């Protein structure tokens, strides 16, 4: 991995009253990464971001930014800048004054300030609104002001707190693309906090999933989706069928387990777990067929269609199998005629390849 720009070492934050918002977190963020902190609300991700910005100080631990421990450095002395969830654009200043603010207070000469403000406004395409006041602007425009205001400082790290949560769906998609493009252009490390997994998966180069103040897994988006390390992550990222199972026997490369509703199945897995485990299969990896599959290795189950939800490009089908096992199947509607091809109450066979199945021990 490239050189770390931000290193967290055993960072812990206990709020007065004893609530541990962040509990012994350690990881590195590399130069130029688009890093996402993802987790349900109250998991400590925003507190962690605020500690990196200096708006909150850790109870213990080190926060190394650009090679220097800055755990107790005030925010105005850190090479980080933040885009706030409420944008926090100064209401009494024009757009240009807002962007110039961070340069003015640190004594950047007027000439240079003017030039850099011009560049920053161009970067976020707001040059034509430079003289406007924030209350005459839309939410999306105000967010661009907040972005320009932070980027004009040329920080080593740009922090974004739920940047898309206040925008409507269409604008959100636009901004998502724009943020990724901006990050590539300016070459600054972005750290984004979000509770929206789609946002994290589509924008970030790496994601840290947090829960209850601790980091559960750090991985690239595809690793996180295809190789989650725990039930929590498999369930939190995307949709998944989680099936309880018991290990019957295991070898170096395979395990045999007794899964609810499926009976004894053989799965590829390294490591030799024992006892209760869970197996996970993503709904889009399941296939629906009218008759039992012919290939010997496939895992298959017979069931009855309970529900079909039509989403245009896909249909989400729920099939009830033996032992009350319910499996969610995503069917691509790749033909104009026929839709998902199944209807409620129909008897179907579901099958999938063993290697698409995940074994989760945690």
């Amino acid at each position, binding site marked *: 991995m490239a050189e770390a720009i931000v290193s967290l070492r055993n960072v812990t934050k206990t709020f007065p009253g004893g609530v541990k918002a962040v509990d012994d977190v350690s990881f590195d963020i590399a130069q130029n990464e688009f890093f996402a902190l993802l987790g349900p609300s109250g998991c400590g991700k925003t507190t962690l971001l605020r500690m990196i*910005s*200096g*708006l909150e100080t850790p109870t213990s631990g080190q926060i190394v930014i650009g090679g220097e421990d800055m755990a107790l450095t*005030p*925010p*105005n002395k850190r090479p*980080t*800048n*933040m885009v*706030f*969830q*409420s*944008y*926090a*654009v*100064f*209401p*009494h200043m024009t757009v240009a004054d807002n962007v110039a*603010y*961070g340069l003015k*207070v*640190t004594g950047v000469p007027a000439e240079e300030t003017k030039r850099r403000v011009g560049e920053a406004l161009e970067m976020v395409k707001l040059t034509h609104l430079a003289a406007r006041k924030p*209350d005459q602007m839309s939410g999306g425009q105000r967010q661009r002001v*907040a972005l320009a*205001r*932070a980027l004009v*400082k040329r920080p080593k790290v740009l922090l974004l707190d739920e940047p898309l949560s206040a925008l409507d769906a269409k604008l959100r998609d636009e901004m998502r693309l724009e943020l990724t493009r901006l990050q590539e252009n300016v070459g600054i490390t972005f750290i984004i906090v979000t509770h929206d997994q789609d946002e994290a998966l589509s924008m970030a180069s790496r994601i840290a999933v947090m829960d209850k103040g601790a980091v559960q897994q750090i991985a690239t988006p595809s690793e996180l989706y295809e190789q989650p390390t725990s039930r929590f992550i498999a369930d939190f990222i995307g949709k998944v069928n989680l099936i309880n199972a018991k290990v019957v026997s295991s070898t170096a490369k395979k395990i045999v387990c007794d899964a609810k509703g499926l009976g004894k199945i053989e799965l590829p897995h390294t490591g030799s777990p024992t006892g209760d485990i869970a197996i996970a299969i993503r709904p889009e990896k399941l296939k629906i067929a009218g008759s039992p599959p012919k290939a010997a290795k496939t895992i298959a189950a017979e069931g009855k269609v309970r529900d079909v939800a039509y989403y245009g490009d896909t249909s989400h089908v729920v099939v009830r199998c033996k032992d009350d096992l319910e499996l969610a199947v995503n069917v691509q509607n790749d033909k104009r005629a026929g839709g998902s091809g199944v209807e409620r109450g129909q008897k179907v066979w579901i099958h999938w390849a063993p290697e698409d199945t995940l074994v989760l021990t945690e």
Partner: protein
Amino acid sequence: MAQTLKPGSGPLDYGSRTWLKLLFAAIFVALYAPIFTLIAFSFNTDKRGVIWRGFTLDNYVKAWNNDALQEALLNSLAIAFIATIIATIIGAMVALLLWRFRFPMKAAYEGVMALPIVIPEICMGVSLLLFFINTGMMEWSVGMPWPLNLSNIVIAHVAFCFPFVAVVVRSRLIGFNRQLEEASKDLGASEWQTFWNVIVPFMMPGLVAGALLAFTLSLDDFVITFFTSGPETVTFPVKVYSLVRRGVSPEINAASTVLIVITVVATVIAMKLQAPTKTGEG
């Protein structure tokens, strides 16, 4: 057939009932008739000011040329001006303290701070008088040149004006988005720079409204001023009072009208500034 409602019988229609309209009118007459009479008679040609005899502006000229009245008005304006500045600064600081910090006995402090708003003016006047006499300030101020001879009154006025400023500024600060402050620091500003560049501009409407309120309160205060002024110093309301004891002259009407106009204008501006605006949003 569509149902029809008799006018005035809807639940929120009581404004259109005749007897209620009459009641409204009666209340307004009782409240404002005396003031309008005062203003009207300031244009009266009659010397005694009891019967309307014709329109004139002479009373204003006479009031203006009355040296004693002029001196009193000048005193009042000077007191109001100085007291407003001091009260606004102290009031703003109290508001910031109450908004920003948590400390033991905060609720008690808040209550004590607001005491001058509710305490009977007469009590405050007497207590301030005793205070000034016992500390020797009464004697001290009498011998001082203008405007230092007004310091007793200024101190007394600051004491009852600053809580009003504090209350107004504090209610403004409640709408402040703390992320603005954080953004300022995050962008490299120190606490001090953040205070002047972000917090003060946000407080400004509250500060102006509070200052105008303090100004009007100070300008027309009678009771506390009456107790705390030395024998030589006269303010406008005190002067009017002493003149009225010798009979109401149209001159006083004219001078009072001027005072009413100043007070009303200041109050209207203060209310306009206090009205909720969109500028509070981040």
